[in-house]
């Protein structure tokens, strides 16, 4: 499902070259879950962006759901991202001009479906994270944790085969974190979703099939 080999990535800040990834390998079958832990600045978000075809690796190959992501330009992969990937961004990235429910169904709208046909599924998801009564609120009216849960619902609304989540429970208390994990578990059982979760939360890591540590630009078993 996810097959990463020898991925490297460096950023250039003027004359300074910062090698963030130094040869990352990762194999994950369908329905597999992996937690990635590691210190701040170690490149976890960078790796997730490369997996999500939002960024390109300097070297190495990335195959996701049968698509050679590393061979295509990111813009050419828009349709692939919409169909096959669900994203939970580290900084939720909700659209402030749209209500919670509108944010949740946005990937479906991008896919060309009508708001009416998506509303039921969106409301269902919001209910599962305890936000059914906040559906009509705009992001500004929501707390950080509430926004994060809306962002998770958005990533799941099209039931993508692959979920890439950057600290999905970062802002959540134990109870709502548990709700989110239940939601993810349910989806994995029902749809066999493959998941890569970046997390600092031991409870999240414990529930994943494997835990890998990103440090010094390489992934190693934690």
């Amino acid at each position: 499902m996810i097959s990463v080999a020898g991925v490297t990535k460096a950023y250039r800040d003027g004359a300074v070259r910062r090698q963030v990834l130094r040869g990352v390998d990762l194999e994950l079958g369908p329905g597999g879950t992996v937690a990635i832990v590691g210190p701040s600045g170690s490149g976890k978000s960078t790796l997730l962006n490369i997996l999500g075809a939002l960024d390109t690796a300097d070297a190495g190959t990335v195959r996701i759901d049968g698509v050679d992501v590393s061979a295509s330009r990111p813009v050419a992969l828009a349709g692939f991202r919409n169909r096959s990937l669900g994203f939970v961004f580290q900084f939720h990235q909700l659209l402030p001009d749209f209500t919670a429910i509108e944010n949740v169904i946005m990937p479906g709208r991008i896919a060309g479906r009508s708001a009416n046909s998506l509303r039921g599924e969106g409301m269902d998801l919001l209910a599962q994270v305890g936000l059914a009564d906040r559906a009509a609120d705009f992001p500004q009216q929501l707390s950080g944790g509430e926004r994060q849960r809306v962002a998770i619902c958005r990533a799941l609304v099209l039931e993508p085969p692959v979920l890439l989540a950057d600290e999905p429970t970062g802002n959540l208390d134990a109870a709502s974190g548990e709700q989110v994990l239940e939601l993810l578990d349910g989806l994995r059982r029902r749809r066999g979703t493959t998941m890569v979760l970046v997390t600092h939360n031991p409870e999240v890591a414990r529930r994943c099939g494997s835990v890998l540590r990103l440090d010094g630009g390489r992934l190693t078993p934690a």
Partner: protein
Amino acid sequence: MGFVWHVALRYFRSTRADAHIRVLSSLTAGGLAVGAAALVLALAALSGFQNHLLADLSRHTPALQLELAGSGAGAAGDADAEEESAALAAWAGATNGVSAVQELLYARGWLAVGASVEQVEVLGFEKAPPVWIPVGDRTARGLIVPMAVAQKLGLAVGETVRVFSPRPGLTPLGPRPRTRTLPVAGIYRSDRADYEELPVLLPLEEAAALFAGGDRRLDLALEPDAEPEQVAGFLRETVDPADATVIGWREANRALLFVLRLEKSLVFSAVVLIVAVAAFALLASLSLVLSSKRSEVGALAAMGAPPARLHRIFLALGALLSVGGAGLGGALGAGVAAFLDRFRVISLPPDVYIVEYVPFLVRGSDVLIVVASTVVFTGAASLLSARKASRLDPVEAMRSART
């Protein structure tokens, strides 16, 4: 509603939340409104004037002219020319769509009263004087003299004048100047501009006898329902260009028509600058919207919105920001123009202009030009920012929001 318009409408709504964008987008709408209104009004005023001017002109000039070639030969040629002119006139008169034909003859000659001599343009006319000569008595036989010439020579109606031709006549006694003494039958004052030399008119027979070698012309009047271009086309195909040239009303007034068109283009170019400035305001507000929405546009791209759709969102937003203002302005301009025309609000000194009020005519084609130019300017502004939006790097854009 589709995804593109949904997002564009929300972004449009959000332009009211940010003070800077609100000012700029109001400036855009206001500028486009003023620009469109000014364009519609200016073009309507010009069209109104031109309409009057052309109507006046077409009353004064024949619909079609046939200019005969080959004048100016010897004495034998003179008779030929006369015959040819008559034959062509008879034939043209029988052509479909032609209601009347008038034979004319142009030449230069002299008028002499006592010791004063004046060189003049002479126009021989068949039947009655041409309609564009404003003379009271159209049946009087004799010379019809423009006011300026009459004043120079001290002429009054009823007095006699000697007319000289520059071409000598051959008599048994040798060449002698051709001359005739004719009574002044009328004096006219033209409302046409002073810069063109006004002719002295006399009946065609007299003119032909004096100025046999002059330039001959046939003026054709058309049936009311005849298509001038069609008749002209038929004549052009049929008449041998060696015999005569067909000149349409538009060709005869080519210089004037050119000036009218030029005037309209110049006014248009000046006024369209308002629209151009408004388009800059549109570009600025779209850029501000884009920079304030960078991370969101990046998120949309990350979720799989293809660049073409991000492009369309900003085109749609540009349209939303401009259509209202431009439409309102255009409608306002048309309304004001109709009002000013209907109630003749702006009056003019009647002895200077051909109309006593400023006429406005809102033409469909003018409105179309205003719409087109507005679309071009605002479209260009929208395209620029739309292109920027569609080329956003999603990761870069989403990072920018946090720093």
